[in-house]
């Protein structure tokens, strides 16, 4: 595959792959949440991504932004919990930002992640270092801004890597939000579950573009 940019149909296909990846990752996501939260993160993400997959299968999207927003809405209304609000906002806000884009290229990726990150932070009030999805999302958005001019494949490679190291960095953080916040130091050593989810999402996007 390995493309410079994706058309609507391909974006839908890529998102479908993201859904599959997250659905299949339920056990490790729940396990991650069990260490620092209430153990249901994988189940919530699975529920959200199953709903999103159905929406994607229905099709009929007029544009790329609507497809991304549909994933957000499906997650938002099927998941509930902290992650329903957070990931729903991530895709909805991010999607809104690529309105008008005919193709999903590195520039669109950067716009998507920037708006996604802003939306998530506005909703959840978390900063980098608070041991949330923001710890993977913010560096990913930054990296995307830096690689706006690169081919999509290359950009996604770096973005996935940034998300991955953000997730890894979350291991050493003390949580300030979500159920993990009450654990204090107890959560140190475990990565944030939402950060793990996000890093798997961009990984799946990368794998679609560069299988």
């Amino acid at each position, binding site marked *: 595959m390995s493309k410079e940019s994706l058309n609507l149909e391909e974006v839908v296909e890529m998102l479908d792959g993201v859904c599959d990846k997250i659905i299949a990752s339920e056990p490790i996501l*729940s396990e991650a949440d*069990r260490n620092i*939260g*209430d*153990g*249901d993160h994988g*189940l*919530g993400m699975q*529920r959200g991504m199953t709903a999103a997959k159905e929406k994607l299968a229905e099709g009929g999207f007029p544009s790329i932004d609507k497809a991304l927003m549909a994933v957000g809405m499906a997650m*938002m*209304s*099927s*998941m*509930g*919990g*902290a*992650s*329903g*609000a*957070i990931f*729903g906002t991530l895709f909805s806000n991010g999607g809104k930002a690529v309105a008008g884009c005919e193709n999903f290229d590195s520039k669109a990726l950067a716009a998507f992640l920037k708006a996604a990150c802003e939306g998530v932070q506005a*909703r*959840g009030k978390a900063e980098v270092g608070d041991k949330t999805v923001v710890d993977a999302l913010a560096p990913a958005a930054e990296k995307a801004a830096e690689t706006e001019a690169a081919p999509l494949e290359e950009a996604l490679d770096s973005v996935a890597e940034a998300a991955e190291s953000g997730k890894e960095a979350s291991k050493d953080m003390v949580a300030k*939000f*979500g*159920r993990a*916040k*009450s*654990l*204090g130091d*107890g959560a140190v050593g475990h990565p944030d579950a939402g950060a793990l989810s996000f890093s798997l999402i961009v990984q799946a996007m990368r794998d679609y573009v560069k299988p």
Partner: protein
Amino acid sequence: MNKTPKIINDPNACAAELLDGLVEAYDGAARKVGKGSIVMNDLPEGKVALLVGGGSGHEPIYHGLVGRNMADGAACGDIFAAPPPDIVLEATQAVDRGKGVLYLYGNYAGDVMNFDMGAELASDEDIEVQTVLIWDDVASAPPERKEDRRGIAGLVLIVKIAGAAAAAVDSLEELVRITRKARDNTRSVGVAVAAGSIPATGAPTFELEEGKMGVGMGIHGEKGVRVDTICTADELAPQLLEIILGDDLELGEGDEILLFVNSLGSTTQMELLIMNRALKPLLAEKGIKVYDTVIGDIVTCQEMAGLSVSVLKLDDELKKYWNMPCQSVGYSKMES
């Protein structure tokens, strides 16, 4: 540890099915609304509405507190997951009788984000919404950071009083004032001795070494004050009371309280009563008078073992609303 076998159907459909079963338990007094709400029928026009809600799996709360002189409706999430904004909106629309809606729920990130989004959607529909967060768990943050505290079993006492008030007052502001007072007068602390399990996977909700107890641990296994070796009820009672009485709620000679000893799931009522026996003389020593005692497993986390102690300091107004009768699946009371 082998988990308690469960009698269910599809492990992923528990939340939806228990809501159906809950609606059925009201025998026509309540109905299901939209995707995941339960709402009382026959709410009179002009009634100030009380909406509660939260994740499922903690039955009978919150949705089992819908009832006569109790909550008018509940927005229900999946197992351990706050309800999504559209469910909150559906519930809000169904309970609103033109006088506005009070959201009353436990202070968890997921609940706050989703209820806030629900409130935004409701305000687009011109429904007035106010929110009172329940943050009674004194073990979860120091008193200066109340907004970081979790909501645990004290919610039962607060919802009971708010439900009675909602049936009596004629403005949302008045309901907010009374509910805030009840909330501000409530303190709880829990102790966990074994985890519950997640219905969908059977996995334990947290890890706790055998023979240990998490003092101040939250109902999902959130961090508490300390992890100790399990001790006797008589040894534990003063520790729990010390945590509650050491907080910023003034409680002493002549004060009257409600006392609620709650099981987190499989801890027996025998144990709650033994704990009650240990608590009462300690309160009496301080001159604190227990006006009414509630014993039960109302705020649970599946078959989790452990218990919590909640106190609500009464004044004449709160007592008046406490004394009103109420009827719900989770808590009922004859007129005092």
